[in-house]
């Protein structure tokens, strides 16, 4: 256990260090302290970008873990149940009609995500004997709906300027992260993560089936909604800054479960850290490509095979 925690901490540190020094503009350790240009690049671009990747990935990983645990389904992460696409619709709506204030985009993304969450849960509640798969099926349906809404928004957009900015934003990227991005992401992530950590006991009670939890005195519906809304807030705050980043929220908890198997606060935090490390590495890779490809390209390239391997292992057991 200790060795594993050390491994994760070391990996995290490594990812942060690499992320601070990889990029178009070469930085050296001495330069940061002596050369004003390097210093400026470091403080205004590289450091914020690294922080956003770390905390954004952390938030996505946590949210994925909370969703999967509450729904008793390893696939039910925010992107699969449609919450991420709901957030993108909300954000695109804000870009088009409400201007580009960061706060407005975050709020609009959150509303879009919550709306989709309502729809998904409503659809899955229609089926009487709902099994574990229902929530995923409902999510796929709602995801398709959200994509349609997004297409409608794109048609509405001015092809010269807005369409491009929506498209670009949808690809998901940390290219535009600067010092001014931090205040709209970090406080939300820190606050909501701390809340979820403090409320972890309530996540645990929801790992039981509903009747059992109710008879232990849990208000199952209210608790579930409360926790899901907090996790959704995490997703929306990340997406409104970075655009769509796929796979992290699905994958992080699975990676963390390689190290800790049972539900406890360590697994909860590890899911977040795994998300942070994944996003940091993916973002480093995008910076190494000439065109700075969207970060989702790399999270998918890393994520898809990793997920297959993990699922294969699970079946093997």
């Amino acid at each position, binding site marked *: 256990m200790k060795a594993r925690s050390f491994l994760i901490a070391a990996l995290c540190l490594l990812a942060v260090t690499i992320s601070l020094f990889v990029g178009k503009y070469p930085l050296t350790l001495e330069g940061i302290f002596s050369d004003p240009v390097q210093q400026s690049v470091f403080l205004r671009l590289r450091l914020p970008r690294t922080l956003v990747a770390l905390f954004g990935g952390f938030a996505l990983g946590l949210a994925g873990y909370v969703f999967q645990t509450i729904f008793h389904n390893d696939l039910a992460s925010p992107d699969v149940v449609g919450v991420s696409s709901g957030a993108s619709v909300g954000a695109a709506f804000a870009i088009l009609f409400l201007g580009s204030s960061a706060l407005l985009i975050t709020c609009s993304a959150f509303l879009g995500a919550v709306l989709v969450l309502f729809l998904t849960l409503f659809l899955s509640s229609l089926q009487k004997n709902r099994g574990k798969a229902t929530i995923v099926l409902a999510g796929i349906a709602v995801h398709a709906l959200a994509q349609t809404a997004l297409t409608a928004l794109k048609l509405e957009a001015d092809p010269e300027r807005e369409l491009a900015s929506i498209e670009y934003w949808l690809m998901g990227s940390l290219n535009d992260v600067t010092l001014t991005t931090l205040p709209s992401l970090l406080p939300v992530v820190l606050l909501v993560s701390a809340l979820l950590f403090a409320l972890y006991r309530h996540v645990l009670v929801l790992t039981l089936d509903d*009747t059992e939890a109710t008879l232990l005195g849990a208000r199952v519906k209210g608790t579930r909604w409360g926790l899901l809304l907090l996790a959704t807030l995490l997703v929306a705050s990340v997406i409104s800054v970075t655009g769509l980043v796929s796979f992290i929220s699905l994958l992080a908890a699975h990676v963390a479960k390689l190290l800790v198997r*049972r539900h406890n606060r360590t697994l909860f935090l590890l899911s977040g850290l795994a998300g942070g490390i994944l996003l940091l590495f993916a973002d480093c890779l995008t910076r190494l490509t000439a065109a700075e490809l969207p970060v989702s390209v790399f999270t998918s390239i890393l994520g898809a095979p990793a997920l297959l391997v993990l699922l294969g292992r699970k079946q093997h057991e």
Partner: protein
Amino acid sequence: MNKLLQITDLSCAYRPDRPILKGVSLLIERGEIVGLLGLNGSGKTTLFRCILGTLPYKGSVLFEGNPLGKNASKAIGYIPQGTSVPSLSVLDFVLLAFYDELPLFASPTKEQKERAKAMLEEVGIAYAEEDCASLSGGERQLALLARTFLRPCPLLVLDEPDASLDARNKKRVLGLLKRKIKEENRAALLSLHDLTFALNYCDRLLLLKDGMIYADFSPKDTPLEEMERILSVYGKMKIGMLHGEKDLFAVAAEDV
């Protein structure tokens, strides 16, 4: 009077034209272990769900003279059928017993942890840090019992606690249940399939048949032939006594 649970004329149907329970009445007092018998599909689990308030029903269910409403969690400890457990440490799993005693943001206290560990020791589970999901069926039942006994609820409802347990584990689970119920003056209502265990461990047996309580008897005070007649819904059988230090019931199917 120690009337704990009084059910009067309870009816329940999943579909209006197919009633499952048609006027069930029963009474459970403190200190009693009451076994609920009945063939598969006779409505045992349905009756439990009505008592727990998770199914709508007609009739009255009174707990210490009052309708349960939202207080079911304070009154009833429930052990569901099948016992699939999540991946938690056994200690965390058992600590969920204190879930509603703590404020929103609090974690279990030291004292609660000590109580949980002591209870685990008492039920005979030595590994509080193990993963619950890796426990055997019998140990899961014991962990569930430990969690339930940490709650203050006077009535325990157990849905087939003997399912898929071997004889040794059945003895462990039912023996523990019996001892704790008597010691703490609680009561238990449990559905059982194993007639030998039902006759030997329960103070009273109820047989659910055609949606009604077909028989309500105490094995110790009922003639063997009478019990054979009542329990013939399971097929023809012979019930005998084994006389030793403690008299025990023995059941054998007749048409083997």
